[in-house]
C-alpha cells in the first residue's frame, strides 16, 4: 500500500535528479572522449528517470515507472547505434578525440 508522500521529500528527489542531469550535461560539453560523451547522455537519462518515478510516486500514478521502461528502451537503442558509429569512426582515424572529427560539421 502506498502511503502519503510529502512535497518536501518529493523536492529532495527532484533536486537529486536535477543535479545528475546537470552533471551529465557538463560532462557532455567538457569531455573530449566520444565514448564518455555518450556515457554522459546516459547520466542525463538516469536523472530524468528519477524525476519520473518520484513524481509518479507522489501522484500515486504508475505511469512514471512505465516511462522509465521507455527510457531504458531509448537508452539501449542509443547505445547500440552510437557505439556502432564510434567504432566506425575509430577505424577510420584511430582516435576517440571528438575535436579530430570537428571537420564533420561542414
Amino acid at each position, binding site marked *: 500500500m*502506498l502511503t502519503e508522500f510529502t512535497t518536501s521529500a518529493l523536492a*529532495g528527489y527532484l533536486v537529486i535528479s536535477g543535479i545528475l542531469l*546537470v552533471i551529465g550535461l557538463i560532462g557532455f560539453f567538457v569531455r573530449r572522449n566520444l565514448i564518455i560523451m555518450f556515457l554522459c547522455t546516459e547520466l542525463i537519462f538516469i536523472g530524468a528517470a528519477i524525476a519520473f518515478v518520484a513524481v509518479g510516486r507522489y501522484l500515486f500514478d504508475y505511469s512514471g515507472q512505465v516511462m522509465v521502461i521507455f527510457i531504458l528502451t531509448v537508452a539501449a*537503442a542509443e547505445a547500440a547505434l552510437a557505439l556502432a558509429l564510434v*567504432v566506425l569512426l575509430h577505424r577510420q582515424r584511430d582516435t576517440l578525440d571528438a575535436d579530430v572529427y570537428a571537420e564533420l560539421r561542414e
Partner: protein
Amino acid sequence: MLALTVFAALRPSPPTMRIGMIVAGVAVAGWLVGLVTGAVAESGGSTHGVFFLIFGLSAVGAAIRMVSHDRPIYCALHFVLVVIATAGLLLLLEAEFMAFALIIVYAGAILITYMFVLMLANQADNPDELRTDSVFDQLPREPASAVAVGFLMLCLVTGSVMSGSSSLPQPNNANAQWTTLEHLPKQFEASVEALDPSFHWPPVASDEGPLIRHDGDGAFIISGEGVRLQLNTDMLPRNTQQVGWTLVNDYPVSLELAGVILLMAMFGAAVLARRAIELTDREKRAVLTAHDSTSSSEAEGD
C-alpha cells in the same frame, strides 16, 4: 560551492592541490548532509531520510567523479556506481521492479557494451605499457563556461522545484491503486475467498461503477445480499503487476513503438557494421599502396 568542486575536479592538477580538493569535497558533502538532514527532519522520516542521504550523495559523488576521471574505464565503473545508487533511490520510492530492471539493463547490458567498445578502442600499442592515457582524456574542453552554464541551469531547476513544490496539488487519488485489482478478476476473487470464505461472490457495483468502494476506513465491497466486506491492503496488486497493467492498458501504442525503435536500432547497427568492413577493405588497399607496415597488419587483423 558544488559548482566550484565540479570545476576543481575537472582540472588536471598536482597532488597537493588534489588533497585540498578532497578536503573541499568532504566539506561540501558535510554541508549538503546538514542541508538535507534539516529538510528530512522537517518531513519526520527517520530511516527513509538516512537511506535517501546515503544513496543521493553517493549518486552525486560518483557522477562528479565520473565526468572528472581521466581514465575512461574508471568513468564507466563510476557510472555503474551511479546506477546502483539510483536503484537504491527507486527502492525508496517503492518502485522495486524498475530498480532491478535498471540494474539489469544499465549495469548488466548497456555498460557491458560501453566497456567492450572502450577496451576495443583503447588497446595499448605496447603490451608492457599498462597506462594508455591519452591527452584528450586529461584536458577538458572549456570547463569554466560549461560549469557556469550548467549550474545556472541547476539554480533555475532547484529554484522552481523549491518554489513550485509547495503549490503542487495535494494528490487525493490514493484509492486509484485499487482499480487495478478490479481488472484482475481471478486474483480478486481468490484473495476475497482467502479473506472471508463465506462472502457471496460476485460483489455488486455501486451506482458510479466501481466494484470497490471507499470510505474513511479504506476500501470495501458489498455482496448481492448487502454484506459488507472490508478489504485488506495486503490484497493490493504488487508493484510489478501495477506497472505491467499500466503499461499494457494505458500505453499499448507506445509499447509497440518501443519495439519498433529497438528493431530499427538493430537494423541500423547491422548496416553500420557491414559498411565498416567495406571501409576497412578500401583502407587496406590504400594502406598497401602506401607501404605503411603497421596499419596494414592492423587492417588484415580486421
